[in-house]
C-alpha cells in the first residue's frame, strides 16, 4: 500500500482493520473531490486522484449515500469512481525498504556515446538533479537505462519508468526483467491487474501514476513526447504527485518539446545522442506534392505518385508503411491499395489483431500496411519504406514526423530507407522536422569522425 492512493471501497483489506489503522495514524485520508478557491475568487473542484480541475470533468447528481448534491470525477472514472463523499486513503506509516540484493544480469556492451549518456544520467539522478536524455530514434535508449536503474535499485531507491503507451510497457517489461535480476518488477497498465509483492521497480503507463502518491525516489518518463502525455496536463501533474519530496524526474525522448525542456529547467542535466547505435545518419524525409489527394481517394482513384511509389516498393519486395491522418481516409484507400496487391492490410488503434498484422509485415508475409499514427513509434522492421499521406495535417507535427522517419533504416545492414512526405502544401512543422533531422545528422557526422566512436 505504500506510495499508493486507494479508494476506501476498493482497498483489499477488511473495513474494520482499515478504521483501526486510520485511528493509529498509519493511514491518512483525504476527500475524493475538494473545492478550491482560486486567487480570483472562483470556486472550482479538484479530483484528488487525477488532479483535474476542468469543470467539464465533474458531474453533479443527487447522491443517496451522503444525501446531498455530490460531484464525482469522470476523468478517472475507469479506476473506480471518486466522489465528494468518498475517501481516498494513503499510507503514512514508516517506509518499507525494498528487499533483496539487485544484480545487473545484462551482459551487452554500450557504444562510447551510450556509455557517456548512461554515466551522465546516473550522476544527475544520484545528485538529485533533473535530467533530459535526448537520443535519436534507434540510439538504444533502453540499454542506456539499465545501469543507472540498477545502481538506484541497489541503493534501495524506488524507481518508476513511466510511458504514455501500453505497447512500450509491454516491450520494456521483459527486457528489464532479463537485465536486472533479484528485484521485484511490476508492469502496470490498464487491465494488467494487481501483481503480488512489493516492487522496487515499476514500469507503468503514465495514467497508472494517478494511483500513486509520494511513492518514488526517481521517475523516468520514456517517450515523453508521445500522445497523450504531451497534451494532458493532469498526466504531468500525476508524475509530480507520484514523486517523493526530493524525488527526481528524468525524461527520455527523441524529440524534446518546449514543454519538456521547461520541465527540466536550466539547471537540469542533459545528454544528447545524435547518432544511431550503428553510426549511420538518420534517413532524411523528402517531400512530394500530392495535391487534391482527398478528392482523388474519395472518387475511388489512387493518386498517381502514391501508386508509383507503392508499385516500386512491391517490385523491390521491401516492406512498407503508409501513414494516414485519419481512420476514415485510410479505410477509403484500403480497397484502392488492394488492387495493387491483395495482401496489403490496414491497422488502427481499435483494430482487433493489430499485433498479428505488424508481425506478419515483419516476417514478410504481407507486403505492406496502411496505418494511423499508432505505429509511429516502437516498431523495428528491417528495410522498411515509409510514406506519410497528407503530411500537412496537424496530427503530423514535428515530433510525429521525426518519430515516423525514425522507423526507417534501423538495422546496420540496411541503414537507409525511403521516407516520403506526400503533402497538399508544405507546413512549418514539416520544415522544422526535416531541419532538426539534418541538424542531428550534422552533429552526428562530427562525432562519427571522432576517435571516441
Amino acid at each position, binding site marked *: 500500500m505504500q506510495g499508493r492512493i486507494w479508494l476506501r471501497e476498493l482497498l483489499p483489506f477488511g473495513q474494520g482493520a482499515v478504521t483501526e489503522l486510520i485511528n493509529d495514524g498509519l493511514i491518512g485520508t483525504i476527500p475524493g473531490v475538494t473545492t478550491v478557491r482560486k486567487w480570483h475568487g472562483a470556486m472550482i473542484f479538484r479530483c484528488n486522484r487525477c488532479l483535474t480541475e476542468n469543470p467539464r470533468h465533474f458531474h453533479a447528481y443527487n*447522491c443517496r449515500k451522503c444525501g446531498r448534491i*455530490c460531484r464525482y470525477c469522470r476523468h478517472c*472514472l475507469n479506476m473506480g469512481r471518486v466522489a465528494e463523499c468518498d475517501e481516498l486513503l494513503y499510507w503514512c506509516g514508516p517506509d518499507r525498504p525494498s528487499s533483496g540484493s539487485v544484480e545487473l544480469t545484462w551482459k551487452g556492451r554500450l557504444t562510447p556515446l551510450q556509455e557517456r549518456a548512461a554515466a551522465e544520467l546516473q550522476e544527475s539522478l544520484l545528485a538529485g538533479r533533473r535530467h533530459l536524455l535526448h537520443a535519436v530514434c534507434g540510439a538504444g535508449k533502453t540499454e542506456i537505462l539499465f545501469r543507472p536503474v540498477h545502481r538506484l535499485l541497489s541503493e534501495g531507491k524506488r524507481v518508476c519508468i513511466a510511458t504514455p503507451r501500453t505497447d512500450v510497457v509491454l516491450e520494456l517489461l521483459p527486457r528489464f526483467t532479463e537485465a536486472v535480476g533479484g528485484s521485484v518488477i511490476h508492469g502496470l497498465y490498464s487491465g494488467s491487474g494487481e501483481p503480488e509483492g512489493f516492487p522496487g521497480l515499476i514500469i507503468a503507463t503514465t495514467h497508472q501514476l494517478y494511483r500513486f502518491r509520494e511513492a518514488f525516489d526517481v521517475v523516468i518518463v520514456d517517450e515523453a513526447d508521445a500522445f497523450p502525455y504531451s497534451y494532458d496536463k493532469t498526466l504531468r501533474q500525476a508524475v509530480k504527485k507520484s514523486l517523493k519530496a526530493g524525488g527526481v524526474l528524468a525524461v527520455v525522448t527523441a524529440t524534446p518539446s518546449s514543454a519538456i525542456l521547461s520541465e527540466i529547467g536550466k539547471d537540469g542535466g542533459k545528454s544528447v545522442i545524435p547518432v544511431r547505435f550503428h553510426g549511420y545518419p538518420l534517413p532524411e524525409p523528402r517531400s512530394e506534392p500530392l495535391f487534391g489527394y482527398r478528392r482523388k481517394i474519395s472518387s475511388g482513384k489512387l493518386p498517381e505518385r502514391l501508386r508509383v511509389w507503392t508499385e516500386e516498393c512491391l517490385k523491390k519486395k521491401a516492406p512498407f508503411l503508409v501513414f494516414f491522418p485519419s481512420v476514415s481516409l485510410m479505410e477509403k484507400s484500403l480497397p484502392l491499395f488492394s488492387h495493387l496487391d491483395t495482401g496489403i492490410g490496414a491497422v488502427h488503434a481499435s483494430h482487433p489483431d493489430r499485433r498479428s498484422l505488424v508481425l506478419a509485415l515483419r516476417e514478410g508475409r504481407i507486403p505492406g500496411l496502411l496505418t494511423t499514427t499508432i505505429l509511429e513509434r516502437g516498431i523495428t522492421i528491417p528495410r522498411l519504406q515509409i510514406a506519410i499521406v497528407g503530411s500537412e495535417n496537424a496530427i503530423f507535427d514535428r515530433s510525429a514526423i521525426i518519430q515516423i522517419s525514425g522507423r526507417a533504416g534501423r538495422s546496420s545492414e540496411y541503414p537507409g530507407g525511403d521516407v516520403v512526405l506526400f503533402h497538399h502544401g508544405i507546413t512549418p512543422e514539416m520544415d522544422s522536422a526535416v531541419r532538426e533531422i539534418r541538424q542531428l545528422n550534422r552533429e552526428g557526422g562530427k562525432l562519427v569522425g571522432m576517435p571516441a566512436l
Partner: protein
Amino acid sequence: MECLLCNSPVSRPPTWTGLFSDRGKSGICVPCQAKFEPDGRRPPLEDWKGTPYEGALDAAISLYTYNDAMKTYLRQYKFLKDAALAAVFSDKLREVPILKGRTAVPVPMHQERLAERTFPQVEELLVQAGIPFVQLLEKTTARNLGRLGRKERMESEPLFTLSDGAEVYRADYVLVDDLYTTGTTLHHAAHILKKSGARSVAALTLIRA
C-alpha cells in the same frame, strides 16, 4: 459539448429551442447513437400463461436490444456508477408513445443496493428526461435476480410490496425498468399494482435482453 460516451466533440446546428431549453441535447454523438440497435420485437408476455401472474401486464415495449454497445453502456452506468449517463436516452424516452396518458412508476431498488449504487438508476433516467413519475413500490429482497436461472426467476417469491402511504388509483400505469429478461420483476410489480386497484398496467424497458 463533448459526447458522454466517447468524449469526441459533438456539434449540433443551433436552434431556437436549443437556446431556451435542454430538449434535443442528448449528449452523445451520432456514431455512438448509431451503435445502439432499436428493438422492434414485443416482449413475450405469453411465457407467463398459466401462472398466477398471467395478464398482470397489459402491454410491454422495449426500446433497444442488449448488444455490445448497450452492455458497455450499462456497465459504465451501473457498475462504474457514472450517473451522467442517465441523460443518454432522454430524447428517446420522452417520445415513447406508451407513456402517453399513463402514470410512470419506476421499478425501485432495495435500500441496501441503493446505498451501494448511490443513485437509483431507473428513477434517474426519468428525472433526466423530465418525465413525471410516482414512487409506489418498495423492493423486499436485496437478492439479485441476475444470478438465478430462468426457471428459478419465474418461480421466485413476491419481490415487491406497496410502499407506506402509497395510493393506487383506478388509473393507467406504466412501469419503467432498465432490462427485460424473463419479465419476472415487471410481472411481480404489475401484479401488486393490479391487486391494489390499477385499471391497466403497461411496461416500458430500455433494453430487451
